[in-house]
């Protein structure tokens, strides 16, 4: 494997007495699309801004292309950044916005022209070059912001929640566009978002952050299928995974989870768990099937959300609200009694004290 383009070692950041990043270790390969995801305040934006050179490093090192860049000014790091607010220069035309950085770098006129035209072509900005940002729609401004990053031909693209200001439909479109762009240009990208759907759909490598630490990192589906902690299990997936606390108990059919209130949750027969252990039982909504007969967990429907392709159901099981996704059209109404059959092979068990996967 080639050397990573970006390496972070023991990276820490404090604002006054408050430490917001607690020793981040991360290596980012050439051409990778890395998404930093986590709830607000988890430190993901701060981390991105430190990589960009907009925020100083308290301790630890940032290595880019084999060179420590802790004290290298932002403009000399070979990076380009797309801001959440787009941060376009409102008094400049799209063309001037694109050419600003090239002017700063004293790029020859013909090269400048060529780069602007090529970026405009890629991002469908050709017809908008003489317009001012105020005359553009949100999506178009987003494209200009990306174009401004593109013309610099950076080694590393940074995106700071670039889609948060767009409406839902446009967000999905731009998501696909950014991913397609990356597949075409293969430029290394670090993308910050709090939207787990963006993280799942766009990333080669998802880095889930929580409270200034990396909770887990890996390919999206690996994180989805094998979350290392309760936090990751809860954070990735929408609707979120059902998480029920209980104790491991024995039954004739093998180990089960006793979740109190006469609620007993089945495990697959081979589960290697110690009886008496306090655990969190996790099961994704799509891994609960609505049974035909009485077999399964007795549940009462409390909410039905038809989403078109699938139906989301909230049901009360032994005092716990459980989310279920069914790809069938359901005629259930609140108050109906149903039976839920868990797919025991897909059960996730976590230590209830540490939150770690068992």
């Amino acid at each position, binding site marked *: 494997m080639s050397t990573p383009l970006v390496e972070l070692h023991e990276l820490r950041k404090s604002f006054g007495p408050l430490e917001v990043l607690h020793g981040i270790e991360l290596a980012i390969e050439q051409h990778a699309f890395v998404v930093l995801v986590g709830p607000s305040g988890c430190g993901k934006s701060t981390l991105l801004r430190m990589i960009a050179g907009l925020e100083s490093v308290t301790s630890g090192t940032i290595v880019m292309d084999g060179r420590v860049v802790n004290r290298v000014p932002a403009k000399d790091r070979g990076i380009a950044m797309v801001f959440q607010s787009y941060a376009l*220069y409102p008094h400049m035309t799209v063309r001037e916005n694109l050419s600003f*950085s090239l002017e700063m770098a004293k790029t020859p006129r013909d090269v400048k022209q060529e780069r602007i035209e090529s970026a405009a072509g890629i991002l469908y900005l050709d017809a908008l070059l003489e317009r001012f940002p105020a005359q553009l729609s949100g999506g178009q401004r987003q494209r200009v912001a990306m174009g401004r990053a593109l013309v610099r031909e950076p080694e590393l693209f940074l995106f700071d929640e670039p889609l948060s200001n767009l409406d839902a439909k446009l967000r999905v479109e731009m998501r696909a566009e950014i991913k397609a762009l990356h597949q075409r240009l293969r430029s290394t990208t670090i993308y910050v978002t709090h939207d787990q759907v963006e993280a799942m759909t766009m990333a080669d490598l998802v880095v889930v952050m929580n409270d200034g630490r990396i909770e887990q990192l890996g390919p999206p589906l690996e994180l989805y299928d094998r979350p290392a902690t309760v936090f990751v299990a809860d954070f990735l997936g929408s609707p979120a995974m059902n998480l029920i606390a209980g104790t491991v108990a024995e039954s004739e059919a093998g180990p089960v989870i006793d979740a109190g209130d006469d609620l007993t949750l089945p495990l697959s027969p081979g589960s290697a768990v110690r009886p008496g252990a306090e655990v969190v039982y996790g099961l994704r909504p799509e891994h609960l099937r609505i049974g035909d007969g009485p077999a399964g967990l007795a549940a009462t429907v409390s909410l039905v959300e038809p989403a078109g392709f699938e139906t989301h159901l909230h049901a009360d099981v032994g005092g716990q609200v459980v989310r279920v996704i069914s790809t069938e059209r359901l005629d259930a109404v609140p108050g109906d009694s149903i039976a839920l059959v868990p797919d025991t092979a897909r059960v996730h068990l976590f230590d209830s004290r540490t939150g770690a996967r068992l």
Partner: protein
Amino acid sequence: MNATLHDSEAMTARERSAEFGKRAVPYLLVIPGLLFVLGVLGYAVAGGFVLSLNETDMFLNKTFVGLKNYIAIFHNPRFQSSLWRTLAFVVLSIGLGISMSMMFALTLYHVGFGRRFFRGLSLVPYFVSGIAAAVMFRFIFTTSGGFVNYILTTFGMEGPSWLGNPVLAFTVSILANAWFMVPFATLILLGGLQTVDKDIYEAAKLDGSSGLHTFRRITLPLIKPMMGVSLIWVSYISFSTFDIILALTAGGPGRATELISVYMYQIAFLELDFGQGSVLMVMLLTFNTLLSLVYLRFFVYGDRRYKVVS
């Protein structure tokens, strides 16, 4: 569609008039203030203009003389020199005032510790009346016992006669004027700086723009409207300044600091020539109005290319 339902959904006359009333309230509330301003200002301006076309005796009996007062004033060498002096005073005051305001605004913008305190402190000169400011400057620049000369003496230097030397007195007047008008201009510019999205500066930094370059290419164009407003303020104050000069130098030494406003006072209230005094008032008004229009044209409305979005 159900006809009765449709009817009941339509606005009743009462609802419509209530709606109209709601929209009319702001205008109604503005009217008293508007009348007051028009009454005081409009009456003074119109009355002054009428006076400028008349000769008035000490019993305020008016005789219409057309442009005679204007012609007399324009041919008066004392007026001509006060006009050039005023223009010099205004140009220098604007230059000094705006650059100081910009410096203070930028400094206050970046002040982190004690931000509110420093911002409040910076406004203090604005709350001091012109007369008081002038008296203070007298204390500072008085030849014997003045603060500046005291400092110079401790270094073994003999201080000049600040208010006795024409050039120095003119300079001190400009300083005092700047001291008085800078705080408000600073406030306007600071407001302008705060409207600029911080991300834009970070984007410029990443684009490789240096601090000075960012100021010239990004900050200045983006605060252009506020720059225009503070220019209007600074020019207006400088053209019209009267109390500061009167209390500081009274136009002296000789006529070294006799600006049009001071000359106007002398001609109208000491020589009791209300006609010629009014001519000067009309001139000041015209200067201020024209200059404000120029600023508005070039700074505030001149650039419609962008909306400054906060």
